[in-house]
């Protein structure tokens, strides 16, 4: 039988959750409501007039094959960013966990990149991969590989994924490292005595015990790649070449702030809201079942 603490009246519990409800209402529900409302209109940029179009903005969006293609681009981008930021982070955390000397320095160094803003990270990576003066493209050139992300869509995707994932490795590292420290030594030692080698211990004991952290990071990283990466894309490729790096959130930004098309931009925000909501539900329904707390 689960133990439950219950309040006797209504006043105290309501008072206690009020700040959270208030913050959610002001900063989440109100803007989201505004976006839904705006998505039904085609306004002029200055807010002088507004024409009700019902679901016209959505019809316009889904009639556009480039918008539909942006879903595929976003899926590919999110999967790559999530993998590229989680796998190296786990690897680094496992190594740091085994360090005895100097782990403090090592940890600090690994956390640093997280302090770099996405747009700045974008500029740094762009500079390294610059087709003319970039260090990386120069070395690739020496190996006979002609790096040109301004015309090659695959390469452009590669560079925005790396630039987006780079800073996140630090964040993920922190969580993995903390989780690794919490894995009971006795279990690992018992396995070691039974003759299990490092990798076997890792796959059969450590990884399953890390699953709550991994699941949390999976959700957080997917949301990150959906929403917070447009600074990187804006500075590196601006969605190009052609449309190979135009993800949904970048299109929201470009249509709203470059094109001044607030109706379409709002409709896209609503679509994005629904997509992320669905993704989170799916993750909690299906992935979480395999998580052991």
């Amino acid at each position, binding site marked *: 039988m689960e133990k439950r603490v219950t309040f006797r009246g209504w006043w105290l519990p309501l008072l206690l959750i009020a700040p959270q409800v208030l913050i959610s209402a002001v900063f989440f529900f109100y803007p989201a409501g505004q976006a839904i409302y705006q998505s039904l209109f*085609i*306004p*002029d*940029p*200055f*807010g*002088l007039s507004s*024409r009700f*179009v019902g679901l016209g903005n959505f019809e*316009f969006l889904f009639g*556009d094959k*480039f918008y539909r293609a942006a879903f595929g681009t976003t899926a590919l981008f999110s999967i790559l960013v999530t993998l590229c930021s989680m796998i190296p982070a786990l690897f680094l955390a496992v190594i740091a966990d085994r360090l005895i000397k100097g782990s403090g320095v090592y940890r600090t160094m690994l956390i640093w990149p997280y302090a770099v803003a996405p747009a700045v990270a974008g500029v740094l990576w762009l500079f390294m991969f610059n*087709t*003319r*003066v970039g260090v990386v493209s120069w070395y690739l050139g020496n190996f006979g590989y002609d790096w040109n992300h*301004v*015309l*090659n869509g695959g390469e452009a995707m590669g560079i925005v994924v790396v630039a987006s994932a780079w800073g996140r490795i630090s964040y993920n590292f922190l969580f993995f490292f903390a989780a690794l420290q919490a894995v009971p030594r006795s279990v690992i030692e018992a396995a070691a005595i039974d003759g299990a080698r490092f990798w076997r211990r890792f796959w059969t004991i450590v990884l399953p015990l890390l699953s709550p952290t991994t699941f949390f990071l999976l959700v957080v990283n997917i949301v990150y790649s959906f929403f917070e990466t447009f600074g990187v894309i804006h500075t590196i490729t*601006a*969605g*190009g*070449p*052609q*449309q190979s790096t135009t993800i949904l959130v970048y299109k929201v930004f*470009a*249509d709203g*702030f*470059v*094109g*001044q*098309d607030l*109706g*379409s931009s709002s409709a896209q925000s609503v679509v994005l809201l629904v997509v992320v909501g669905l993704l989170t539900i799916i993750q909690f329904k299906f992935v979480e079942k395999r998580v052991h707390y």
Partner: protein
Amino acid sequence: MKKSLIGALAVSTMLTPVAAMAETEVQFWHAFTGRLGELVKAQVADFNASQSDYTVVESHKGNYSETLNAGIAAFRAGEQPQILMVFEVGTATMMAASGAVRPMHEVMAQSGATFEPDSYIGAVKGYYTTTDGDMLSLPFNASTPVLWVNRDAMTAAGVDPDTDLSTWQNVGATLDALKAGGEECPLVTAWQSWIHLENLSAYHDVPFASQDNGFAGLDTELMLNGEAQVAHLTAMGQWAQDGKFIYTGRRNEGGANFRAGECALFTESSAGYAGISSEAEFEFDVRPLPYWEGVGNAPQNTIIGGASLWVMEGHDDAEYKGAGEFLSYLSSSDVQAAWHQNTGYLPITIEAGDATRAAGFYDENPGTDIAVIQMTAKQPTANSKGLRLGSFDQIRGIIDEELEGIWSGDKTAQEAMDSAKERGDALLRRFEAANR
């Protein structure tokens, strides 16, 4: 101690309203940094020193897009400046917002400041003028594309640096010779849509869009998939495939390559002068933008790029008077001549151009007058007055995407431009719906 503090406060409160009453403040939001930002600051300081009725306060609001966004957001919040700098592609957006902007000719008439519409260069003011001839905004910084030549690179590849490059036919032959002579970057460009589509159309006197390039109405459609445009892009696409035209990006990334001496030919704005003349460690030339011999009425005139100053609604009469005086000061011959000579931007008045010539500037800096001649040689036609298309910043983005399809060999020029037309027209219809 306490008394003297109160005394100081009393004096300061007494003085402040007096100063505020004497000088009406005029806010001026612009997009310039670096050298251009300093020149704007100097213009504003000169104006403020020249009279005591108005104080112009300049503030930098980010790049062109950001400045426009700042102006729009401020208008929605009721905090708009009197004068806002808007780049040329935002012209249709501003024009359509009749409740948000006050046309320049009205501001000038109300303020009583000196204003002679005929003194402005036709091809420059045309971009910002209605079909009835009323000026809507003041052209501030205007430039037009020209061809920059690295003479040393030509010589190194065994090509005569004085070769005639006035037509694309000649340029094509020169690119062959440069490539054969070992040049790795024969041609590079900046602002591909502006130069190789918008200006190409005007220069050959063929339409870029229906309804006089959008001047005659919002029900305009793109016509950039016409014969002349497709033929040019087909040639450029072939040059890209052959490694004779090197694509470096959507903006002016190619400028870095050219200024470093890595490329032989460079199509770029005449305002590239400041950067090229200070950085290039090689002999360079300015030539008129090439045209296709026998296509359309080439050479007609090229069109401008840059920004103009818009006066916004919602202020009182004294502030409009101040704004009018400031715009009048900016149009004066001395200010314009200095701006033209310092920046490489076009002079906006005929007088300023003449003053610059009389001062011997063009003789000392050969080639700096080519842009002026190219713009003013012929009376602009309906096809070469400029472009006035809604959502044009975004349409340029679409054009950039489609051009990248040509340069990479994924699409033919016809396919790419047909697609650009279809996608651009959809945005034009939305703009029409939003501004009906």
